[in-house]
C-alpha cells in the first residue's frame, strides 16, 4: 500500500512538473498588467491586440506563415519523393542515404547555423526568404522522410501488384493506390515540417536578416531584451496551434490505422 501511494505521488508530481509550466503561462496572456507575474490584476486582451497590431509582432507572424508554408511545401515534396525512391531496396546504398536524410535531426543547430551562414553568404542568400526557407527545410525534411517511410512501409506491395494486374499502368498505380495510401503519412509529415519551421530559432538567428524575423525569433529576442506579456500571448497562440496540430496528426494516424 505505501508503495502504491509512493508511485501515485511520484507520477502526479512528475505530471505536474511536465504540464504545469505550460498551463501556468496561459492565463498571463490575458493580463492587463505590463509585467509578467501573478496575481493578475485584471483581465484584458491588450496583449493579443499588441501581437496583431505592433509592427514587430505582426511582421513576425506574417514571416512565420510565409516561411512555414514555403518550408512545408519544399520539405514535403523533396521528402516524399525521396521516401518513394528509398522504397526500392535494390539500391545497395539505401541505408547510408537514409542515415544522411535523418542526420539533420542530430547535428546541433548552432553548428549547422554557422556552416549555413558561411554558405548562404557565398550564394548571396543571407537576409532573404529563400535562405531561411532552405535552412528550415534542411531540418524539417527528416520529419517528412520518417513519416512517409513509415506510411509506405505499411503498404502491402501486393496491393500495388494487384492494381497492375487489373490493368493499371505504373503511373496509375501510383496515382490511384500508392499515393492515396501514403497520404496520411505525407500529411502528418507536412504538419510536422510546418511545426518545425514555426519553432526554429537557431538557424533563423544565423541566416535571417531583420526582415525575416519569425515569430519564434521575435519571442527569443523579446524574452532576452524586453520581456512582456506579449510573450505569454504568443505562447498561448503556439499552444493552441500545438493542440490543433497534435489533433491533426492523431487524426491522420488513425486514418492510417483504420485502413489496415
Amino acid at each position, binding site marked *: 500500500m505505501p508503495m502504491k501511494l509512493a508511485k501515485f505521488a511520484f507520477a502526479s508530481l512528475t505530471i505536474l512538473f511536465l504540464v504545469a509550466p505550460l498551463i501556468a503561462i496561459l492565463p498571463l496572456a490575458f493580463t492587463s498588467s505590463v509585467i509578467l507575474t501573478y496575481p493578475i490584476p485584471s483581465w484584458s486582451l491588450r496583449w493579443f491586440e499588441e501581437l496583431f497590431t505592433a509592427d514587430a509582432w505582426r511582421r513576425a507572424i506574417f514571416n512565420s506563415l510565409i516561411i512555414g508554408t514555403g518550408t512545408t511545401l519544399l520539405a514535403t515534396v523533396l521528402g516524399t519523393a525521396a521516401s518513394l525512391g528509398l522504397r526500392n531496396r535494390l539500391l545497395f546504398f539505401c541505408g547510408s542515404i537514409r542515415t544522411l536524410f535523418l542526420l539533420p535531426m542530430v547535428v546541433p543547430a548552432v553548428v549547422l547555423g554557422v556552416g549555413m551562414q558561411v554558405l548562404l553568404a557565398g550564394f548571396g542568400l543571407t537576409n532573404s526568404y529563400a535562405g531561411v526557407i532552405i535552412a528550415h527545410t534542411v531540418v524539417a525534411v527528416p520529419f517528412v522522410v520518417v513519416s512517409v517511410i513509415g506510411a509506405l512501409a505499411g503498404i502491402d506491395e501486393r496491393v500495388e501488384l494487384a*492494381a*497492375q494486374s*487489373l490493368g*493499371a499502368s505504373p503511373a496509375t498505380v501510383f496515382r490511384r493506390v500508392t499515393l492515396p495510401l501514403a497520404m496520411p503519412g505525407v500529411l502528418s509529415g507536412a504538419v510536422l515540417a510546418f511545426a518545425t519551421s514555426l519553432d526554429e530559432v537557431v538557424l533563423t538567428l544565423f541566416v535571417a536578416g531583420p526582415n525575416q524575423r519569425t515569430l519564434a525569433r521575435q519571442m527569443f529576442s523579446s524574452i532576452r531584451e524586453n520581456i512582456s506579456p506579449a510573450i505569454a500571448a504568443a505562447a498561448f497562440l503556439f499552444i493552441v496551434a500545438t493542440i490543433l496540430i497534435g489533433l491533426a496528426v492523431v487524426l491522420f494516424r488513425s486514418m492510417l490505422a483504420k*485502413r489496415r
Partner: protein
Amino acid sequence: MAEFIRFDRITKFYGPLCVVENLALGIGKGEFVSLLGPSGSGKTTLLMMLAGFEQPTSGNILLDGTAINDVPTHKRDMGVVFQSYALFPHMSVGENVAFPLQMRRLGKAEIAERVARALDMVQLSAFVDRRPSQLSGGQQQRVALSRALVFEPRVVLMDEPLGALDKQLREQMQLDIRDLHRRLGVTIVFVTHDQSEALTMSDRVAVFNKGKIEQIGTPRQVYDEPATRFVAEFIGETNLVEGVVEAVQGQEATVRLRSGAHIVSAVSGSVASGQPVFLSIRPERVDLSETRGEARNCLETEVTDSVYQGDHLRVQLQNAAQPLIAKLGRRSREFPPGTKVYAAFSAGDCRVIAP
C-alpha cells in the same frame, strides 16, 4: 482442348539460386490447372512470371501462341487473386470491383451494371459500400475473386487464395470457385500446397518439386498412378515398399520383396527386370482378412496397433521387417494387436515406381 498458355523451357534464377528449372507446361483454354508442391518449390515464382511481375531468366511464355515476355503486367489482361486478398484498403467494395473496369475506360452505366453482377455472383451485393477492413476474411476473399473476374480476363491466377481461411470456409470456397469456373469457363491457374484442395478443384494437377514438374495429370492420375516417389509420398498417404523387378508383362510387373514375397503391380513408367524399385500401395486399398482370399497379392502380416479415427480404422501391420498401414472402412471389424492377418490388394491398386 486447344493449348492456350505455354511455358516454354522457363528458367528463373534469383541470384545464384535456381528457383524454376527448364520448365515446360501447357494449359488449355478454359482449363483449371493447379500447381501443387511443397513450400519453396517455385509455384509462386512461376505464377508471378505468368502475371508479369517477374521476368524469366530464360525461356518464353506464350499466350494464345504469342510470346508475352515483353508485355507489361497491366496489358496482360490476367486477373490475380493473392492469399492476402490485396484489396485496396482506401476504396469501398464496389470501388474495388469497379477498378479494373475503370482502367478499361468502360462507361459509368456499364461499370455499375457489371459490378452489381459480379458482386451478386459472390453473394456480396449488400456490401457494396463497405470498406474491406469491415469484412470477414471469407468475404474479403470473395471480393478479391469478383474483382479478378469482373473484367473477364483471359486467365485468372490464384496464389493460395484460400490459405488464410479456416477449414470449413475453405471447403465452401473451394466448391464456390469450382462452380464459378464451370459457369464462366475461364482459364484458371491455381497455386496451392494443400493436396486435397488441388484434387477437389482441378481439371489437372501439376506437382512441383524444387523448381521442376514431377508429374502433370488429372487428379485421378496423380493419385492413382504416381510417376515418382515424390508424387506418391506428397499426395495422400502411401506405403512404400522396396523390391526388385523380376519380370515385366505389358502393363504389369512382378516384384520380389525383401521378405521373399512376390507382388504383381501396375507399372507407370518403364522398368526392366532386375531393377530395384519401390511399390506404392495406398492404405485404403488394402483389405485385411484372417483367411487367404482370391486377391492376386496377399501378404502375411501381424497387427501391431489399431486406432479408431472416426471415419476409418487405421491398422498398423508388420510384414517381415516391413511396416505397412491399412485404412479400413468403419464397418470393418476390429483387429486386436497380435492378430495374424492377410493384407490383400489387386495389381491395379499398387504401382511400381522407379527410384
